[in-house]
């Protein structure tokens, strides 16, 4: 009990001491909180994004077969589709029709895709929410595209894609096969690529090998590769965001180290006075420990909580310009709240521990010397 009472008095004293240099310490707390906020935001955002994309991509096709021509992705004919049907283990196969369309009116790239199951008429389209927002159109409005031969075709917007799916459907335009072929000038019997479903997931690699052997000019892309690509997205090892962040962190480390380790004459005198009125070295050390702990703990909690709100309840607004780049269309999405315990523990350790230690070490050097020498 005595121990706690003693610590409480020390906290009282430390808080008074911190408040005496209010401007300097509040400034430090603000910068410290900002650094934790940025780090935690990046951490929560990348983890949340990885989790969300990973879960959704589990539903994507097992194998996608692309034909390569002179090292580039080319259209694939229905002869290839028939050849894939001879493989054992392939349960479903279909040609996909999709392509990119640049809209000079808003300088945006759309992904035009055929959705047979929606039974769209030749003059109907279903569009993604980002397109509707950018073009300012909605169901019942008309949208016009210039086809490959310069003809213009007008389509009526039959509906919008579910806004909850925007992360995957923001720039999609769904249309009928007839309209798609007329827009891009692709003849019957040709597809963008082929999608294959496999009944046994362990057979996928085998089937991919067989596909490569039978059709050497094709490139099979497996679901595992999609998942790996998006698992590595925004890797901590790479990216300008982290280079910039590293610069900010280094600047803070220098600032904090200077603040924590370089004792001012006033602080030296304070320690001298404390020792001369009877404080022991351990008391001074404990007081300084509290000083470091109070600042770093407050910065960690405030920074983390603000980052949590920013990422999961404000749609990570600050990252939008970075992710958007030069794109015109950007999905409005909210991530499902998810936190990685290990990442959180690492953030806690690296934000609280170094500063607290950096505060104690120089104090210990001063506190063990003679008070008379310190005050002179």
């Amino acid at each position, binding site marked *: 009990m005595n121990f706690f009472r003693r610590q409480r008095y020390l906290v009282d004293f430390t808080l008074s001491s911190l408040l005496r240099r209010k401007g300097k310490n509040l400034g430090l707390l603000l910068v410290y909180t900002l650094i934790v906020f940025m780090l935690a935001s990046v951490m929560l955002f990348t983890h949340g994004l990885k989790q969300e994309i990973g879960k959704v991509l589990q*539903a994507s096709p097992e194998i996608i077969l692309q034909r390569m021509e002179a090292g580039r992705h080319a259209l694939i004919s229905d002869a290839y589709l028939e050849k894939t049907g001879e493989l054992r283990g392939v349960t479903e196969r279909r040609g996909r029709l999709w392509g990119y369309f640049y809209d000079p009116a808003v300088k945006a790239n759309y992904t035009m895709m055929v959705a047979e199951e929606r039974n769209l008429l030749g003059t109907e389209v279903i569009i993604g929410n980002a397109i509707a927002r950018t073009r300012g159109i909605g169901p019942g409005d008309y949208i016009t595209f210039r086809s490959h031969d310069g003809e213009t075709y007008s389509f009526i917007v039959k509906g919008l894609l579910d806004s909850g*799916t925007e992360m995957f459907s923001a*720039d999609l335009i769904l249309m009928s096969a007839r309209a798609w072929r007329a827009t891009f000038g692709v003849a019957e019997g040709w597809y963008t690529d082929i999608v294959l479903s496999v009944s046994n997931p362990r057979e996928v690699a085998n089937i991919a090998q067989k596909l490569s052997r039978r059709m050497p000019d094709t490139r099979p*892309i497996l679901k595992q590769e999609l998942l*790996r690509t*998006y698992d590595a997205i925004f890797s901590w090892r790479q990216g300008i965001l982290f280079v910039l962040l590293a610069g900010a962190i280094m600047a803070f480390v220098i600032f904090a180290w200077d603040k924590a380790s370089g004792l001012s004459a006033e602080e030296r005198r304070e320690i001298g006075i404390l020792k001369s009125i009877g404080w022991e070295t351990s008391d001074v050390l404990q007081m300084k420990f509290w000083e470091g702990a109070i600042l770093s703990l*407050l910065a960690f909690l405030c920074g983390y909580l603000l980052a949590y709100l920013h990422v999961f309840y404000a749609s990570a607004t600050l990252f939008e310009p970075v992710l958007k780049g030069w794109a015109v269309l950007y999905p409005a999405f909210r991530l499902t709240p998810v936190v990685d315990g290990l990442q959180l523990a690492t953030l806690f350790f690296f934000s609280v521990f170094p500063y607290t230690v950096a505060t104690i070490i120089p104090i210990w050097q001063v506190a063990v010397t003679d008070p008379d020498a310190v005050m002179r």
Partner: protein
Amino acid sequence: MRKSGSFLLLIALLFGLFLISLLDTAGAVPEAEERLMHTRALVTALGLTDPALFTEARYTRHLSQADLHSAFQDHPMALEHFPSGSLILPPQVGSGE
């Protein structure tokens, strides 16, 4: 109230909010589950392969479908110039060979 009392109260409040944030992630969010279910249904129906996060270039829109050298295809010595290219890694492909 003593300064230490106010401070402990503040820390307790922040820690409480911290715990709430953890509970928020642990609790099943029905709205999020429903959203996920709809997205997965769309992905299955259309055979989608990539999120529409970076629509600025065709190889950033469909990262997993892009040619492996697509960032450098414009002309010899052309470097990647789209901003999202500095944020993301190239496609992690290879096992399909």
